[in-house]
């Protein structure tokens, strides 16, 4: 009943989209993480004019669908072509590839900054006071005490966010990028065999996510040597 020949045909076809999926995920997760860290740190200062715009950015990107954000950046900003050309940014907003990366990065920066903000606030106050008492500068305290602890604390929540981003890259197929989901949709409408294509594409994503989760669990365990391994 299971048509092996068909699977052998669609597996390489779908895997051909994996490099693009990986590129989109890796770029937006790294850019988003850097932005998230900067946003989280900027909010530690408690300056009103810094905190409020960041809160607004976070609320907007967490409160609206990723698809709307992608369309707004790709189609919506495309409307301002003369202005974008004048300031030399048109090459960026012309390409669906860059638009997808911009939208995904901004989205994950918003979610990630909340995760990191919570983790930074979770660092026990006494440790920071001890660092200050031993004469460490604010920068040194941040680098040697706060960030190592906060980032390790954030790994479980952040790995959820990373999985959501890997899933989010599938939306790039709607703005014509042919990654795994885009290829899957094409194959389904060509072959009319939705289940086989779904199983294969799903297996690719599950393998990818499983690999990421295992790697992050290993990282967390490695950074927590005193905790007994379960």
């Amino acid at each position, binding site marked *: 009943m299971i048509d092996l020949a068909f699977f052998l045909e669609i597996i390489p076809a779908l895997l051909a989209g994996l490099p693009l999926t990986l590129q989109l995920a890796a770029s937006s997760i790294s850019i988003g993480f850097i932005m998230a860290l900067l946003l989280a740190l900027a909010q530690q200062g408690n300056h009103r004019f810094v905190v409020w715009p960041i809160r607004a950015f976070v609320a907007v990107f967490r409160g609206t669908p990723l698809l709307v954000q992608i369309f707004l950046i790709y189609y*919506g900003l495309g409307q301002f072509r003369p202005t974008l050309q004048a300031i030399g940014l048109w090459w960026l907003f012309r390409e669906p590839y860059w638009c997808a990366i911009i939208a995904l990065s901004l989205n994950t920066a918003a979610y990630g900054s909340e995760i990191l903000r919570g983790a930074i606030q979770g660092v026990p106050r006494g440790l920071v006071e001890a660092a200050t008492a031993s004469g460490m500068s604010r920068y040194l305290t941040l680098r040697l005490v706060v960030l190592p602890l906060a980032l390790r604390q954030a790994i479980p929540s952040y790995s959820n966010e990373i999985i959501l981003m890997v899933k989010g890259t599938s939306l790039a197929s709607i703005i014509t990028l042919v990654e795994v989901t885009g290829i899957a949709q094409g194959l389904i409408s060509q072959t009319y065999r939705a289940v086989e294509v779904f199983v294969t594409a799903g297996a690719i994503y599950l393998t990818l996510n499983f690999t990421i989760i295992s790697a992050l669990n290993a990282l967390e365990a490695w950074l927590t040597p005193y905790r007994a391994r379960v």
Partner: protein
Amino acid sequence: MTYILHFLGFGQGGWGAALLVASGVTLALSVLGFLLGAVFGALSAGGRLSRRLVPAGLAKAYGTVFRGIPDLLTIYLLYYGGSIALTQIGKFFGSAGFVGLPTFATGVLAIGIISGAYQGEVYRGAYQAVDLGQFDACKALGLSGFQSLRLVVVPQLMRHALPGLGNVWQLVLKDSALISVIGLVELMRQAQIGAGSTREPFIFYIAAAGLYFVIAVVTASVFRYGEARAWRGMVHA
């Protein structure tokens, strides 16, 4: 500026009414999908908590698969898979063309399946947070299994489940925009239609984003109210 705002108004050539109706469709789609997801989620939590291997394994696989693969793929599977099956049945009865599934029902089913996977995790965690003494008390009072679930366990479980359910609801609301890909005219699709026919994509997607945001904020307060109600009479941090 007035030229642009005119597109979102309610007068001649204004899309205001269409966008509001579409917001209603989005809300209905999300609410029904979320409720269906509650059924799947409860079944899945029941499976996960079961000591028997088959239900536990099935529930675990369900949660892993639908939380791990892109929602767009699930939507394509249901829509195309269902339509292909329906077309086959149509052929059998002598119809020639492609028979598409009803998009609203497909959307509700897709959101139900996806959110059920997330809700299952929430219910499982909340069930385990109910104090064990409560179960002993149920036995002591001679309540049947169903009675103790309905009268004792579920009301207490909801206290722990509501924050997580609020998060799932926000996820559902945003996921509902993906149902636009199968052609259901909800908020996202209506914004696309408006953007296409007026060639003003920016204003229409901003309007859609604004409406999603308002729905998200207003419905979040419903969950906060529910949480306050679930904890009434209890001292809690």
